[in-house]
């Protein structure tokens, strides 16, 4: 960093007071960077004295990542990204060579969810970049902080349909928070720093920098400036006082208040504030799926997850509340069902950092634009009386007993998938991290695991990407280890169909000796599709039924992982114990009841209050 004032104001690595936004989620990295840089030669660069000076655009890219506190990278090599990888070779950053770029993106995404700091993925041009697309779209839908760096053909070839050329910024524009085509070796490091800052500032999201090979290869000795978002980007942290006061009054006088906690509460590190607010004012809590863990599901105020496969009591509460305090949620259709019947009696207090979410799907009577934690604190101060909701809480309790989340588990039938989820939950601590693919198994993992801590639930919510579970487990494991949580279990629930989409990443888990457990809830169906076909397509199992499945335990062994097959209830406990105890990746193929369905269920566009408890009620 050539400009010491810039360093001083923005907290580059050279001063022992790093920018909180880039390092607060990763205290270890902060300490380490500080330790290295404190004795650094004042004349030297921003990094540690051991770091070689920047010589090329690629060096500048790597330096920008190091300056931002990045310690882990997930990627796949290839022609146009080779200069960047050549610079990574000399860096202290740890690179995980993934099997497929999609997995690199999912791993980076999960890393961002668990650590709170953007995960970084790399890919080459053309197919490398397009393979990232699913993972980028996934991160975008779930507002996960992530940075994607893609190689590109040299600038003079762009537009010529050169080998492995794709219009990457064009392809990813609608699915990134922002993307940039790096135009010069002098500024490419700044572009990367800006992408990193933007990914984690305000409403998080994926950003991408496209790196043409001539730019990364070109000579430059310019050290990148500090990572900061562009001047045109503004974030409102505080809600307006008048608006807060009005919302507070609505809350104080509500007879049936309900706190709807969204994923923004976790991203905004506002779980504590949300808990305090709900508990102080005795307001029942429903979470959206991405928010699971933000509020402890074993607390008496918790009504657990709402929406399509949410609990009956959560959906009853959503339907009957007269004051819905929604924090950091975007009212996805899987939560609201038909908008006409969503919380139809409720005045809506909507807290969000993104003004565009206000009144996008559900009109906000009290819009509060700001950071989740900050606004919850403002509300905490402004609300002076506990709402008169004794009767409401009793009603919610009654619903909890009327609509229990249980399931029949006859001994003479195949193992119920819910039972497997509960068995893993019971055998692991509160800090265990669950990742999932997408489908029935994901819903059972959501419904039957009791989440009590934020950042322990890692799933593909908005995009619904099958195959997310294993690559996400890899990213989650790396992030947890980096935070010193080596003892926390990482359990990936997968379906047979979902697992087959990305199971090649077992090679990575084995090579890197990552302690992850994959629990395949194998029903030999694309189960959610089969369930819908039974419900809505006269049971015609078109392209959802294989009739044959590979032997997942053998496959796991072939990869060098531990493989276990479970057919009966009496094998479950040992399999759970062995797979968790195994130091390294383990795969358990649970042959579960193929006919089991996910309930409760609100059909698409349906009325949340009319959730079905079985197929006949749809």
């Amino acid at each position, binding site marked *: 960093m050539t400009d010491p004032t810039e360093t001083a104001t923005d907290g580059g690595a050279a001063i022992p007071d790093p920018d909180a936004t880039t390092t607060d989620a990763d205290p270890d990295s902060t300490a380490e960077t500080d330790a290295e840089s404190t004795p650094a030669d004042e004349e030297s660069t921003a990094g540690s004295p051991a770091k070689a000076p920047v010589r090329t655009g690629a060096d500048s890219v790597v330096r920008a990542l190091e300056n931002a506190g990045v310690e882990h990278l997930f990627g796949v090599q290839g022609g146009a990204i080779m200069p960047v990888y050549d610079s990574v070779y000399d860096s202290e950053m740890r690179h995980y060579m993934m099997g497929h770029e999609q997995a690199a993106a999912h791993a980076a995404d999960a890393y961002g969810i668990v650590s709170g700091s953007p995960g970084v993925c790399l890919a080459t041009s053309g197919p490398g970049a397009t393979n990232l697309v699913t993972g980028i779209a996934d991160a975008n839908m779930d507002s996960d902080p992530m940075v994607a760096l893609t190689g590109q053909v040299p600038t003079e070839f762009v537009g010529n349909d050169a080998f492995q050329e794709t219009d990457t910024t064009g392809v990813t524009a609608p699915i990134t928070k922002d993307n940039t085509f790096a135009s010069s070796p002098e500024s490419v490091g700044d572009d990367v720093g800006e992408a990193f800052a933007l990914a984690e500032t305000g409403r998080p999201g994926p950003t991408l920098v496209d790196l043409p090979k001539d730019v990364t290869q070109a000579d430059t000795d310019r050290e990148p400036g500090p990572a900061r978002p562009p001047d045109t980007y503004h974030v409102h942290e505080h809600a307006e006082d008048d608006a807060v006061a009005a919302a507070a009054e609505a809350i104080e006088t509500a007879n049936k208040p309900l706190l709807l906690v969204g994923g923004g509460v976790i991203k905004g590190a506002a779980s504590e504030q949300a808990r305090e607010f709900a508990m102080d004012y005795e307001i029942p809590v429903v979470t959206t799926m991405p928010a699971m863990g933000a509020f402890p599901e074993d607390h008496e105020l918790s009504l657990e997850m709402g929406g399509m496969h949410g609990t009956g009591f959560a959906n009853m509460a959503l339907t009957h509340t007269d004051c819905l305090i929604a924090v950091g949620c975007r009212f996805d259709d899987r939560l609201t069902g038909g908008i006409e019947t969503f919380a*139809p009696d409720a005045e809506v207090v909507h807290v969000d950092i*993104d003004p565009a979410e206000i009144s996008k799907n559900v009109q906000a009577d009290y819009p509060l634009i700001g950071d989740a934690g900050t606004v919850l604190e403002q509300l905490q101060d402004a609300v002076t009386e506990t709402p008169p909701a004794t009767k409401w809480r009793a009603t919610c309790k009654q619903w909890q007993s*009327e609509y*229990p989340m249980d399931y029949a*588990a006859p001994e003479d039938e195949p193992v119920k998938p819910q039972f497997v989820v509960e068995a893993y*939950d*019971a055998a692991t601590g509160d800090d265990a991290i669950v990742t999932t693919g997408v489908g029935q198994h994901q819903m059972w993992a959501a419904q039957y695991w009791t989440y009590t801590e934020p950042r322990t639930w890692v799933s593909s919510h908005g995009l619904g990407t099958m195959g997310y579970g294993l690559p996400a487990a890899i990213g989650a494991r790396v992030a947890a280890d980096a935070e010193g949580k080596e003892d926390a279990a990482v359990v990936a629930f997968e379906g047979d169909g979902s697992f087959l989409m990305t199971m090649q990443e077992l090679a990575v888990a084995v090579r890197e000796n990552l302690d992850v457990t994959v629990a395949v809830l194998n029903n030999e169906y694309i189960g959610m599709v089969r369930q819908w076909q039974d419900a809505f397509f006269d049971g015609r199992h078109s392209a959802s039924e294989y009739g044959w499945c590979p032997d997942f335990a053998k496959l796991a062994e072939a990869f060098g992982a531990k493989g276990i097959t479970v057919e009966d209830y*009496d094998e479950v406990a040992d399999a759970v114990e062995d797979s968790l105890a195994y130091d390294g990746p383990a795969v358990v193929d649970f042959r579960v009841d193929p006919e089991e369905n996910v309930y409760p269920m609100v059909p698409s566009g349906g009325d949340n209050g009319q959730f079905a408890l079985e197929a006949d009620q749809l």
Partner: protein
Amino acid sequence: MSDESTENAERETHHDDVAPRANTDESREGLAGPLPHERPTPQGRRNKQGIRVDPEVEAEHEPRRAVISVLVTHEPGVLSEVSSLFSRRQFNIESLTVGATNDPDRARITVVTEEPDPGIDQVEKQLRKLIPVISVRELDPDAVRRELAIVKVDAENPSEVAAVADMYDARTVDASQSTVTVEVTGSRQKIEGAIDTFGQFGIREVTRTGTAAQARGTNRTAGTASETATTEAVEAAHATDGGEPVDEPDATNDTDTDHQ
């Protein structure tokens, strides 16, 4: 759950925080609880825009035409970002123009959209989220709005064409033995009227620009200062400014009269 099987008992040994929820009632399908029709139902309802409405007098918001001015950084790809936003979010777009401003680093995009009020609100908010967008503002109905059309007609009666052109302050910009091409500038209504009238001569081709628009008087169109800071001031200023929402050249400090 009193008659737990041995497996369930086995499970019990693991658990401390998770109560087993499996039951062994083999006859039961699905989950327990009152049937949908047995449940209490709420009184209210929302409309398609998520606004609570009186179910008796359910009214949808009617679309209206809005002119939105967007100041952006002058860099490659901005126009495509803006236009793809409209298609991706299914906002109706009537016209979109883009051009340089007096600041070489800034360009101005003028979008005419037709949406109900909540939709217009979303258009503005989504535009603001784009990183190259500096400011966004819906212009008041009285804003200066201009379009340009180039109309090529058959030249069988050149003097009549000239007379019509005169009526619309149109300029003849090209002529051949068989065609006359005129340029018309003005409000959308005027352009449409002109094209309609030129139709009698036989129109060969029409090229239109879409709307370029600017706020009147001292009002800001979409300025460089922070949106939130200026919006109220602008609105306050506007209250004292009785601009005429008609198609007359106006005495503002900009060059609105350059079409003559």
